[in-house]
């Protein structure tokens, strides 16, 4: 069985608001998927429905071909929720021992500590005395405790410092290489670009883009070639080439927008423009994100 997760025509309506509107997607084993989207786009609602914390108003969700409440499903998933969760009154070590006892084949305690960067000192600390970032690390360790097949993380790196964040993605990549299926939401686009093979872009409860980071970037962002040249030099000679969509000067630098940047380079040398300090700008994810989630839909 290759398909780990499937959502079919899932909608969630709250009293005054449709938070998720008729979405469908599926995930194969070993896929690492990022869920992106502005605040209120429906990311947490979707994740909550996948986990069985919320019931879809209509539509169907299957994990490992079963309902999420089933025991064998619960044994195979690990989660970090958007809200930090801890159990008061126990030390980190005790909580880890406790949660590990729920699973048939938990990860060894030592591995959990190494993978999440918890320190000896952290282990002895009671949860009510932890800092925000330490709580996050604990939550990460709890998510991994059962050695899950499928990991579901809602904004996992919020509140982590740079080192913890690096450690987090290192660990995630290790698991991805082992063939684990991972789905996470984030507002840090670079994280999605670096770590996900697939991006689901949410907007107003719908999925407005679904593809590899590369595909999404190339779908909407304009590419450009820019260079420096003698301000006296006329560029008229370039104007009649059909590959060029737009050309303008800004602070002595010339910008040429085109989908075929290689062709433009060829032209620059053919026409002997005297271009130097040439830069090729292919769109970044941030630009793509802005265009796809902006109010006017023409961009798509």
């Amino acid at each position: 069985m290759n398909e780990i997760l499937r959502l079919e025509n899932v909608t969630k309506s709250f009293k005054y608001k449709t938070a998720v509107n008729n979405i469908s997607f599926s995930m194969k084993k070993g896929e690492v998927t990022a869920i992106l989207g502005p605040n209120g786009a429906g990311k947490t609602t979707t994740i909550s429905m996948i986990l069985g914390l919320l019931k879809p108003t209509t539509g169907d969700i299957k994990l490992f071909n079963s309902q999420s409440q089933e025991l064998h499903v619960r044994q195979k998933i690990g989660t970090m929720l958007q809200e930090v969760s801890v159990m008061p009154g126990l030390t980190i070590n005790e909580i880890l021992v406790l949660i590990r006892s729920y699973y048939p084949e938990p990860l060894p305690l030592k591995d959990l500590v190494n993978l999440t960067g918890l320190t000896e000192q952290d282990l002895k600390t009671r949860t009510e005395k932890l800092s925000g970032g330490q709580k996050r690390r604990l939550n990460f360790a709890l998510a991994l405790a059962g050695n899950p097949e499928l990991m579901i993380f809602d904004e996992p790196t919020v509140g982590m410092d740079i080192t913890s964040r690096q450690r987090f993605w290192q660990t995630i990549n290790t698991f991805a290489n082992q063939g684990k299926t991972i789905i996470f939401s984030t507002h840090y686009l670079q994280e999605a670009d670096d770590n996900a093979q697939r991006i689901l872009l949410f907007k107003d409860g719908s999925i407005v883009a679904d593809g590899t980071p590369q595909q999404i970037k190339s779908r909407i962002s304009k590419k450009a070639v820019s260079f420096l040249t003698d301000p006296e030099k006329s560029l008229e000679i370039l104007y009649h080439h059909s590959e060029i969509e737009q050309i303008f000067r800004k602070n002595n630098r010339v910008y040429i927008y085109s989908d075929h940047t290689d062709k433009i380079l060829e032209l620059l040398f053919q026409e002997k423009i005297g271009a130097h300090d040439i830069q090729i700008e292919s769109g970044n994810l941030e630009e793509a994100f802005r265009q796809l989630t902006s109010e006017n839909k023409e961009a798509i």
Partner: protein
Amino acid sequence: MKAFQMQCKMEIKRVLRNRYFVFWSLMMPIIFYYIFTNVVNTNAADPAAWKAHYLMSMTAFSVMGSSIMTLGIRMVQERTQGWSTFIRLTPLPDHIYFSAQMVGQSVIHILSITVIFLAGAIINRISLTPMEWFMSGLWILLGSIPFLAMGTLFGLMKKVETAAGISNVLYMVLAVCGGMWMPLEIMPKAMQSIGHWLPSYHFGSGAWEIVQGGLPSWKNIVILFAYLVVFMLLSKYIRRKQEAA
């Protein structure tokens, strides 16, 4: 099974680490007991009977307190801190979680009963028959069930502060009006007639009967049971309303 044992163990650890519990459920009752049987002269007609009677009062007071306060407050805490949600996502079945809480709570009660009984036996050389010790302890253990149900009612509240505040006040009112601090017989008539309908009075009364060589009356049992049913229905009703909202 491993999960169940581990869960029980951790529940017990958590209660013992709670300073409120150690103070209100162990230290306070013992201090009170010492004061009202040794320091203050109560002019009891039969000092030995009074000492046994008051030991039951204080033990019942202690167990009633941890039933009402510990469980409820912990439920609110776990909910507000997202722990209840997290637990729902793990493979731990709900009934294991619930029964571990109950077992943990019972172990704690047995511990409180043992500690306070021992303190009483040492402080005042109380001599009861082994059967009386056992029966009164068992009564207090089982009689606390309606108060546990009451605790789950507070557990449905939104904030820890409200739950702690209200349950604490109610706990004190029940203790005083139910004759746990002072016997009902020395209170004004009006107080007495209210007291006779409170679960705390019947909870204490069963134990008082036992140490005087009797047995809890049917009325004790029926009224405690009635309160249990009311609290459970109420809790079910509120939960349903909260889910609908």
